[in-house]
């Protein structure tokens, strides 16, 4: 299944097909001749109000697609920076329901920027998979990255996500060999998230050489856009990745800036939002080749 040949999912007529935002965005950027800047911040980090202000500011600062991390107590694919972000968010009462509320509020002022929720399966299970997919689509979510649901367990959530019109974006890792790639890609829609390192988020970066080898390998198997993530920190790295693939995902570097701007007790300061958005601006300029 690819983005183009999937069946049209059931949807209500009074809102746009949610998954179409991702395809539309990548198509528009392709026409512009550049790749996408995908940003990641954890929902509710460090509090709901700041998190919403960041979300609302991201498109203007140059984010093309937005990943919202769903806080979880045991984020086993994440490095220390995102672990701490989750702890800050949980401390102020973040829940999956609350994150959907954030997206709903964001959608009031922005109907074009794709929103992807990224997180772990257990909060979705606790919410109820069926109800979650319906509510997420209704809130304006376009795609899901459920880190700990590999293609082998796709039956857990894929039917519900498809029925709700949500893209299921899958991770492809350096360990995903050619024999396995078709299986992973067959279970992917929206775009492919290439995890550029064997490791957890924000701990090290891939070499340009390894990316130059990896991206064509994946392209042979899919026509979906490919975004590179895990380990992209600087504008230069983001620019290179966005040129080599179809998008660059920056998460930990933004979370680090956010964390460094906080008071000692972990609460936001007046400059928190501005500092993070300035960094997004610098990344966006590099992705746009400026």
């Amino acid at each position, binding site marked *: 299944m690819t983005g183009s040949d999937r069946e049209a999912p059931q949807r209500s007529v009074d809102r746009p097909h949610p998954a179409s935002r991702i395809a539309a965005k990548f198509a528009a950027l392709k026409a512009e001749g550049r790749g996408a800047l995908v940003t990641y911040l954890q929902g509710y980090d460090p509090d709901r109000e700041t998190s919403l202000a960041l979300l609302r500011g991201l498109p203007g600062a140059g984010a093309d697609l937005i990943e919202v991390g769903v806080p979880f107590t045991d984020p086993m694919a994440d490095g220390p920076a995102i672990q701490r972000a989750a702890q800050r968010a949980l401390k102020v009462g973040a829940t999956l329901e609350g994150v959907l509320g954030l997206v709903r509020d964001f959608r009031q002022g922005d109907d074009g920027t794709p929103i992807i929720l990224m997180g772990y399966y257990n909060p979705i299970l606790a919410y109820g998979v069926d109800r979650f997919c319906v509510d997420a689509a209704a809130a304006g979510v376009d795609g899901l990255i459920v880190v*700990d649901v590999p293609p082998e367990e796709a039956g857990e959530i894929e039917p519900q996500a498809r029925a709700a019109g949500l893209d299921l974006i899958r991770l492809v890792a350096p360990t995903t060999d050619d024999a396995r790639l078709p299986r992973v890609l067959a279970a992917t829609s929206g775009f492919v998230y290439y995890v550029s390192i064997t*490791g957890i988020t924000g701990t090290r970066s891939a070499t340009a050489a390894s990316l130059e080898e990896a991206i064509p390998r994946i392209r042979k198997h899919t026509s979906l856009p490919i975004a590179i993530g895990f380990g992209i920190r600087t504008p230069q790295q983001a620019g290179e990745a966005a040129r080599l693939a179809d998008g660059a995902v920056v998460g930990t570097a933004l979370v680090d800036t956010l964390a460094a701007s906080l008071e000692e007790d972990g609460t936001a300061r007046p400059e928190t939002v501005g500092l993070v958005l300035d960094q997004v601006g610098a990344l966006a300029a590099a992705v746009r080749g400026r």
Partner: protein
Amino acid sequence: MNKPLPNTYRQGPDSQGRFGQFGGRFVAETLMPLILEVEQAYEAAKRDPAFDAEWRRLLTHYVGRPSPLWFAERLTAHLGGAKVYFKRDELNHTGAHKINAVLGQILLAKRMGKTRIIAETGAGQHGVATATVCALFDLPCTVFMGATDVERQQPNVFRMKLLGAEVVPVTSGAATLKDAMNEALRYWVANVQDTYYCIGTVAGPHPYPVMVRDFQSVIGEEAKQQMQAAEGRLPDALVAAIGGGSNAMGLFYPFLDDSSVRMYGVEAAGHGVETEQHAASLTKGRPGVLHGNRTYLLQDAHGQITEAHSISAGLDYPGVGPEHSWLHELGRVQYVSATDDEALAAFQLCSKLEGIIPALEPAHALAHVIRMAPTLPKEEIILMNLCGRGDKDIFTVARHLGVEM
């Protein structure tokens, strides 16, 4: 949900690693190819008589198996009811049952060409067993251990270091077993090429629950034969402590289809299952997904994992092996619990009556035996897995009893 065939409880898991709805392979893509490689290697090793022969040679001459079956005569007289037998896995080299599965897994790692071993540990028993076997096979070993557990299990930390292992204190979360497992998985993701993750219990992504169960089943297989020799029949009840549940699965599995044998898994009730301070995942939790498998978990209404509590670092885990979740829902095994205080009392009683200082983990099982034996007729037989010895716990127990050491 898949139902088992009515005539066997021993056919699981299915090809997806599921015991009914429980189990599975909930890991990030980076690990998935490696999990499949472990599964393939294990399937091949199982069919190789040379692998089994080498494992059994080590069990006999290095571990000291078979472990004895001991009729606890003074305890039986004291309780005044059913006869109580101990399966004495505390006499194994390294002092617990953990080494049975560690030997199997390290032999597997060698077959796979892995050159570095990592493990998580709570009480330190699995860490010590892994460090021991790594010393024997000259493999570098890194053990992840919650910083809280490093504090309360100092003797085992020192043991691991003596054996040449690196002990990494984990400070994230509550800094106990759950967090050590997260950190081991994170390290593994970053070192997939050369590293084997030696999991200490019947949990984690498939094939770990079935593989660790198979290796630990040596406990139940031996006990079945030994009971036949001692009493000429099967026991009436089996009792074992449950953290992740490896010693219990090892004892129960060979008896699962013997319908006359009742089985009791004893969870850690900490300060009481009516409080927030316990580790009773089956008694008080509900199904969810953590550490690669679907199983009963301690979690809040929003699916966030809550901290477990137990005086025993080995039971201080908010989950349980998926096969236990399945046996719980089928009703084949009764899952009960014992508090910190009940375990402390059992710890002391066993020391005084039998001259055996048990680990705090099997002291929970013994607490249930103490409740149960007096209610049963004298002809009945209870078999308890005494899965670890208490040397590592004497400091903890002394502190709880107000003794300065």
